[in-house]
């Protein structure tokens, strides 16, 4: 019985090495915990906030942080704490949504490009070069300008601007895995192309993508907030960190707390994601393992 247990332990050990490396990195674990808390807050926003995010109370406008309003109220007397918590929803949806879309598209393009090479590769990479030559923030702005500014379009805009990133990383990873002798020997065994791609190449070229995805979420949230700040993203009265700061900007001389809290929320989220990304990268890097 004990022997079996031991064997099972060994069986998963590659994953276990990864987790052991990851959990040894206290900052990374802290990042993961913060991120989980933020996600939980966004999901259960209804239960942890005392007001409605769009509930106005003009008499109570511009009140400083107090026991009643932890982060104070804005120009319409809306509770900033409530709005910050609800704002997490927009940011997380855009962050994770855009990265999921970009990752899916980028990985498929990168896989095709890296595995087949040749003219297909040359064409796809040229297209990626073109998209990459437009700074991603400007590209997103151009797309939103064309499609109109709302959550969906913002998500599409950011996703499109991120695709080349994922495609390039995936391509490089696939190209290095393709050289591995286990891929050659699978082909020599007579395994067909699709199985080689699905069983040998994809699982082994995915780890750099995971790191990139984490950092990509951070980047997307920042971009989305920046766009909303410019008035090109999510429009008021929907609470969003970027547009909250944008409004608060007008009152910065007299009511600076209005700027502080949404900004701090963005920063905390990005910091958590960056910590997590660093931790994942270190844990996935075989160089640091020995």
């Amino acid at each position, binding site marked *: 019985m004990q022997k079996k247990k031991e064997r099972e332990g060994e069986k998963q050990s590659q994953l276990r090495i990864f987790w052991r*490396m990851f959990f*040894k990195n206290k900052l990374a674990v802290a990042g993961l915990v913060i991120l989980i808390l933020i996600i939980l807050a966004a999901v259960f926003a209804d239960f942890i906030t005392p007001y409605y995010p769009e509930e106005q109370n003009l008499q109570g406008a511009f009140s400083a942080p107090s026991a009643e309003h932890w982060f104070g109220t804005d120009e319409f007397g809306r509770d900033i704490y409530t709005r910050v918590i609800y704002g997490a929803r927009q940011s997380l949806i855009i962050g994770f949504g855009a990265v999921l879309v970009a990752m899916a598209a980028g990985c498929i393009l990168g896989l095709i490009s890296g595995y087949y090479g040749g003219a297909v590769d040359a064409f796809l990479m040229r297209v990626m070069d073109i998209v990459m030559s437009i700074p991603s923030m400007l590209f997103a702005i151009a797309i939103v300008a064309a499609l109109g500014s709302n959550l969906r379009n913002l998500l599409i805009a950011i996703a499109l601007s991120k695709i080349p990133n994922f495609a390039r990383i995936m391509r490089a990873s696939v190209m290095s895995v393709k050289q591995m002798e286990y891929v050659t020997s699978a082909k020599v065994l007579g395994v067909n192309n699709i199985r080689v791609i699905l069983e040998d190449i994809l699982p082994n070229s995915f780890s750099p993508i995971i790191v990139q995805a984490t950092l990509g979420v951070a980047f997307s949230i920042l971009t989305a907030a920046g766009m909303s700040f410019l008035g090109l993203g999510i429009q008021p009265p929907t609470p969003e960190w970027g547009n909250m700061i944008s409004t608060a900007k007008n009152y910065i001389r007299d009511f600076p707390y209005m700027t502080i809290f949404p900004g701090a929320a963005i920063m905390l989220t990005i910091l958590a994601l960056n910590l997590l990304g660093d931790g994942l990268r270190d844990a996935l890097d075989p160089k640091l*393992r*020995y």
Partner: protein
Amino acid sequence: MDKELLKVEDLEVSIQTYRGEVQAVRGVSFSIRPGEVFSIVGESGCGKSVTAQTIMKLNASPPVFIRKGKIIFEGRDIVPLSEKEMRQIRGRDISMIFQDPMTSLNPSKKVGKQIEEALKVHQHGHRKDMWNRSVELLRLVGIPSPAVRARQYPHEFSGGMRQRAMIAMGLACTPKLLIADEPTTALDVTIQAQILELMKKMKEREGNAIILITHDLGVVANMADKVAVMYAGKIVETASCDELFAHPLHPYTRQLLAAKPKLNQSRDKKLVTIEGMPPSLINPPTGCPFAERCKEKTARCAMAMPPEITLAGDHKVSCFQHQDAGISQEVCV
């Protein structure tokens, strides 16, 4: 002549890894006389390279620590020396060439400049003289049209040429000891023959001693005066080259010699296999490290580490088989 150039006493070196402390070198002692070629031979992970790098204190610390022991170079223990004092020794008194000539040269610096740099560290003189000397060194190690080659970058050199350049760099300040860490492992046979020949020729010229680290017993037989066989962080046998190959005493040495087919042997002779693998050095066995794989082991082999006994002709071996024989043989002589 009998004065020792380098004496290593009971050296213990450990490497910290996330799995635990690897005891890479576990009590190694040997000595080298001026002008001698001393070879340390063993398989990967036996601690031979760590020993070599420790002599120059090149290992980054952490993760590598000298736990115990002395390294006495020309009568002075260099273990307690500071980094600044070590710099005086490196390159001038002891220098080193490495296994992979492809990565051991700085890719973005001209080869001549890299040799010149070795000179500049320890000598003062006119820049032009230094450069001329580098070109001269390249010529000495057999690089054709050295003046042109000195202005090229390492990637324009072939593997053999780079190793020649490394040798030129190593010998730039006429050191008393050259440590060659697997200098020919990455090279082809015909190029290996050239490099070994070059090392011999340069040794004749400069009179330096050489520590040759290798896994290839053939290279040892070609080059060495004295040989130490290392296994799992310990030296199990030391003898002069002729003596070791003629009368290998330790079972590991014997089996290692029999495990590799020789070019001058007929093929009917069955290859001896050494079953199993070397032990992990994180928790090394208390007894003889080879006991687990040894075909001649007895009960006590696994219990305690056999002490090193000196037999006739300065032949040292750590094996219980010879413990009793040790005295009788000495009596015989």
